[in-house]
């Protein structure tokens, strides 16, 4: 259902506005039930740990990206008491206000019993009560979520960085998200076929239908990631320099696992095999890239059958964070390997703020800013810098165990609510 706004109402939302106006949770983590009208002003959630502050941010993130920031096991999102009580489902529902429309966005997670006695988690996405795919979430609600554990993004396993790129792109790029879905499915099928061919033999040509999908969608994914990383890198560098008072620059490097666009020397450097590339001419547009990728998969078949898995493609891409200092000339450091915890923290703050600027530039509307307990980790100057961003977005939701961490001035203009045992109550001011 699309609710048309009156001209009067429109004038209120004319300054590029995107916000969650209402949030409803059912059996979602700590929340048996939550009905919450979100205020116009910054919302500061406070309370002891494990009471549901983070879960509320997580719910909003889930609506924006279709996936949880915390766990690849989405089944843990379902409230375990509800599950024990025979209600194996969770529901997150929100009313999202955009410049020109109001939409209902909803994610339902259900545990479905399977014939073999195990369960499967079924995720249903609905927009204005109509069932949609994950790709349809793109452009509905955009958020930037910043949590203390995000610092692990820099030095943690590469899967986390790929997931970060995917979740960010899926918020705005429907074609990317569709390509990702198709790629992931084809990869699963091809790997199953590779194991079958290794263990029982058979016709290797049955890999071809999946290789076609991997090549086609893989090029879309690589292009999307390359553009995103370039856009983020430029913005993150500017912010990083501001945060360090010009003492350090930052560069994000996209390192595709298979890159038909790269010159052969680079490919060799990246350990992509010793044989020079022998496919079709490169740099001739998407079709040429698809053909090169298809050819690469074809020539590696024998090796990949022996290993029982697909070894090249975007599912093995890397993203690196490199920093240097003008004082040290050309010397540069990979922050994932050699960065100090403090450097990594600054870099991830710069990344998140770059993401905010990117989403705003891409959609013309500021994303909703979700800050989870991050102030405690930052020094006074960075705290001020981050909080100055809160004024630049239409909506911000922040959490803190101790609201005193925020200045009296900030608490004055924010709405304070206390979260205790999955219940949210508006506290008296102060």
């Amino acid at each position, binding site marked *: 259902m699309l609710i048309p706004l009156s001209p009067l109402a429109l004038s209120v939302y004319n300054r590029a506005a995107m916000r969650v106006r209402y949030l409803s949770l059912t059996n979602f983590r700590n929340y048996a039930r939550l009905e919450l009208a979100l205020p116009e002003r910054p919302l500061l959630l406070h309370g002891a740990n494990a009471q549901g502050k983070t879960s509320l941010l997580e719910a909003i993130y889930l609506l924006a990206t279709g996936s949880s920031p915390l766990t690849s096991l989405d089944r843990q999102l379902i409230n375990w008491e509800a599950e024990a009580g025979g209600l194996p489902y969770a529901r997150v529902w929100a009313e999202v206000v955009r410049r020109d429309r109001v939409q209902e966005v909803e994610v339902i997670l259900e545990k479905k019993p399977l014939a073999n006695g195990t369960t499967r988690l079924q995720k249903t996405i609905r927009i204005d009560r109509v069932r949609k795919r994950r790709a349809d979430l793109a452009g509905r609600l955009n958020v930037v979520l910043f949590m203390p554990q995000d610092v692990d993004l820099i030095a943690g396993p590469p899967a986390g960085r790929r997931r970060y790129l995917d979740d960010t792109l899926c918020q705005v790029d429907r074609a990317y998200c569709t390509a990702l879905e198709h790629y992931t499915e084809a990869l699963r*099928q*091809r790997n199953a*076929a590779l194991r*079958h061919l290794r263990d029982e033999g*058979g*016709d290797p*040509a*049955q890999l071809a*239908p999946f290789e076609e999908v991997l090549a086609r969608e893989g090029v879309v994914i690589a292009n999307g990631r390359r553009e995103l990383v370039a856009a983020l890198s430029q913005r993150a560098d500017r912010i990083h320099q501001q945060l360090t008072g010009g003492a350090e620059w930052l560069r994000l490097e996209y390192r595709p696992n298979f890159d038909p666009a790269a010159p052969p020397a680079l490919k060799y450097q990246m350990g992509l095999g010793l044989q020079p590339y022998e496919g079709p001419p490169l740099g001739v547009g998407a079709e040429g890239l698809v053909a090169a990728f298809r050819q690469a998969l074809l020539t590696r078949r024998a090796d990949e059958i022996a290993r029982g898995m697909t070894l090249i493609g975007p599912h093995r891409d890397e993203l690196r964070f490199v920093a240097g200092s003008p004082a040290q000339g050309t010397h540069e450091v990979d922050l994932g390997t050699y960065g100090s915890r403090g450097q990594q923290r600054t870099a991830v703050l710069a990344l998140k703020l770059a993401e905010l600027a990117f989403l705003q530039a891409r959609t013309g509307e500021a994303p909703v800013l979700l800050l989870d307990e991050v102030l405690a980790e930052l020094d006074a100057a960075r705290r001020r810098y981050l909080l100055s961003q809160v004024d630049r977005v239409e909506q911000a939701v922040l959490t803190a165990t101790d609201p005193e961490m925020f200045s009296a001035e900030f608490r004055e203009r924010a709405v304070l609510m206390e979260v205790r045992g999955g219940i949210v109550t508006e506290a008296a001011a102060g």
Partner: protein
Amino acid sequence: MQTAPASVTRLIEELAELPGIGRKTAARLTYFLLRDKSDLAGRLAEALRNLKERTRFCSVCYNVTEEDPCPICADPGRDHTIICVVEEPLDVLALEQAGVYKGVYHVLHGVLAPSEGMFVEDLRIGELVARVRGSDVEEVILATNPTSEGDWTASYLLTRLRPLGVRITRLGRGLPVGGDLEYADAVTLTRALEGREAI
């Protein structure tokens, strides 16, 4: 806990093996048969025995049949130069009910879906290639479902049939994406068949 007699439990367990039948439904069906006074159980038992004893796969098209070759393959009035390749015997039924197709069929008995343990070796593909090679077949219609699995299967069939120099077509776009031939109505099937395109 009191348990049912072994013969009751046995039938419940066997019925529950069927797709779409849970233990609860299986138990309900079992007790229905117990109460029934019209010897439904006896007729069902005979029908079940005949199902396997009297039927086999047609040695030409692999459809389910009581005579070999099947009535369609044996019919001189059908056009034997066109083969329509389908996933399941039920798809043949749906196309026959639509009543426009005059060629013959080839039933694959499944689709390519490695993650579910279905590989090309499990399908009647070698038989199809042998049937087309050196025959006077002029066209092969790939009528697998418009699903991911159906597309992968068609894509593989294409690589096997292409070298044989036969005209290969795919059902037209009229079918709903992700749908199933088996559930399409006659009008939709006719339109899809007439709108088939060479690939």
